[in-house]
């Protein structure tokens, strides 16, 4: 069994309630921080842990916190990003539903470290039942002296509020989230200034993902140095992976970042193999925006080494032969799945979710969707494949926020690795409507299936 730091107590009945959480060591980390550590010392521990943002970008959390501006007399804010909307990702939902106090304890320690006296949890609107769970937990924490004024006699004050979004993927981008929290459309802001200097209501603000903030609790419990001993290299600690698609056991798993992709997919402890006795065709390991890889490149890097569930190993080879750990939204496709169709659903998704501010994204996402729809319906031309490649290249890097990149990458990777499947759709317009291209050579050993340069 892999070691657990977030879900180590998840099996305990009623752990979502205060009394049970507290009786099992809950709020011990917060107590330690408030009673025996300065904010600077907590920050040191987080830096030592090597914790990286769990929302997808993987930016070092301690470093992000150290950027927060501290002008005299200006409030600072911590915002918890619970807008989990990247297709394939549903890990934060699990954490909030079943371990709400773990998150609240993490918010308390993090707010203390940053000197923030108000903290907002911005949760996606569709998770409509979760604010009740969080608000109940907040009320119980407050009743027991973990929120409010002069927490546990430390002199530190904190209030936590839950704010529901209303259906917009873009609000997971931190500046769009801040705009939304201010009661506006979720249009990302131009950076700089960064939120650490000018964020919510123009005050210094840190925005972190749910899992990132919850992870601060075990870091303080075992110490930053000890935490850094989990995992491999710069991928320290554990990561929540939400596994879905054509596997036997979809769900949310906590993994130590030292196991191979093969073990994650095929072991009984995790995904339990491909469903219905089918074979693995492809996988998108970090949420819909990261590059899709064919089975052969997924399980082994281009160098022939086993691919590991770490930031570095998953991105080994760059976009030519690698992908990204991203948010940990692990989407598995079996041999019966159509890459064109799958790519089309993601193109439609990003078109739907583009805020419309930047023309490359606003126009390009819709254009890609239309071209892909044509190919999928057997009405595509060979030149459409090159056109798609051209459009995605003109979106990538040319927008205010990363949604443009997120929309471009899945299309680019699908063409890069599955170009012959796209061509087959164009050349076999009728056949492609009644059957799928199938596994083809995508699971063959690497030397045969080396991706064609595009």
């Amino acid at each position, binding site marked *: 069994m892999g070691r657990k730091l977030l879900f180590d107590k998840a099996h305990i009945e009623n752990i979502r309630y205060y009394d049970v959480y507290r009786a099992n060591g809950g709020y011990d980390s917060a107590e330690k921080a408030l009673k025996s550590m300065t904010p600077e010392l907590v920050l040191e521990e987080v830096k030592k842990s090597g914790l990286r943002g769990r929302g997808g970008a993987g930016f070092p959390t301690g470093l992000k916190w150290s950027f927060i501006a501290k002008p005299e007399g200006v409030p600072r804010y911590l915002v918890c990003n619970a807008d989990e909307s990247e297709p394939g990702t549903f890990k934060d939902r699990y954490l909030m539903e079943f371990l709400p106090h773990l998150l609240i304890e993490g918010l308390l320690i993090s707010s203390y470290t940053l000197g923030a006296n108000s903290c907002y949890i911005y949760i996606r609107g569709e998770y409509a039942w979760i604010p009740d769970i969080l608000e109940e937990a907040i009320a119980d924490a407050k009743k027991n002296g973990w929120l409010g004024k002069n927490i546990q006699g430390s002199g530190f004050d904190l209030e936590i509020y839950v704010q529901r979004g209303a259906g917009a993927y873009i609000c997971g981008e931190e500046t769009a989230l801040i705009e939304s929290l201010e009661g506006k459309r979720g249009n990302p802001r131009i950076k700089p200034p960064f939120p650490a200097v000018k964020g919510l209501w123009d005050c210094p603000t840190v925005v972190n993902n749910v899992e990132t903030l919850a992870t601060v609790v075990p870091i303080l419990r075992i110490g930053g140095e000890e935490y850094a001993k989990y995992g491999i290299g710069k991928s320290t600690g554990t990561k929540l992976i939400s596994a879905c698609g054509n596997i036997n056991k979809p769900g949310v798993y906590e993994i130590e970042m030292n196991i191979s992709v093969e073990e994650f997919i095929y072991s009984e402890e995790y995904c339990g193999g491909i469903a219905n006795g089918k074979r693995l065709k492809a996988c998108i390991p970090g949420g819909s925006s990261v590059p899709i890889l064919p089975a052969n490149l997924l399980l082994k890097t281009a160098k022939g080494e086993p691919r590991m569930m770490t930031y570095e190993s998953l991105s080994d080879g760059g976009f030519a032969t690698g992908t990204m750990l991203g948010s940990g939204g692990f*989407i598995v496709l079996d041999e019966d799945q159509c890459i064109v169709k799958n790519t089309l659903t993601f193109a439609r998704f990003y078109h739907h979710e583009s*805020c419309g501010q930047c023309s490359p994204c606003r126009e390009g996402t819709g254009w890609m969707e239309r071209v892909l729809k044509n190919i999928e319906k057997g009405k595509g031309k060979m030149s459409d494949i090159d056109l798609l490649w051209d459009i995605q290249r003109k979106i990538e890097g040319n927008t205010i926020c990363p949604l443009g990149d997120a929309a471009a990458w899945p299309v680019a990777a699908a063409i890069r690795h599955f170009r012959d499947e796209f061509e087959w759709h164009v050349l076999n317009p009728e056949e492609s409507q009644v059957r799928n291209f199938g596994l083809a050579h995508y699971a063959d050993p690497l030397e045969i299936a080396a991706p064609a340069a595009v």
Partner: protein
Amino acid sequence: MFSEEKLNKVKEIIARYPQGKQKSALLPVLHLAQEEFGGWLSAETMDYVASLLQITPIEVYEVATFYSMFNMKPVGKHVFEVCHTGPCMLRGSDNIIDYIKKKLNIGVGETTQDGLFTLKTVECLGACGYAPMMQLGKHFREHLTPEKVDEIINECRAKAN
């Protein structure tokens, strides 16, 4: 107009933000208004919300139209919002959507003549591991099969009677 109780709720929401930042209450108050006034936001409703928060009506319109959860026209009593993004598609969401269309005899975006059901397709709701799924009111209905869809339809009809 909100009831006294709802007006108190609005006050409580506004108190979460610093003085003068009551515009931040817009999304929560629009959710409240949509629940209270028939499941959608009419121009009158949006103007009312603007007056409550002391902002201009256009500030409400531009926000309400941006977010997919706010309905800009009337919907049925029960709205089936079926996810059809990649992970749900891989687990057969297309079949579920087709089944609901046939069963209710409506297309996507339409409402049954009795005003009971609206069918919508939506993008990823964060339940990929429990696909196919739909949102129904406040909750998710997961691991959908035709049989489960039948049960849900019956359940909604029973509630209406």
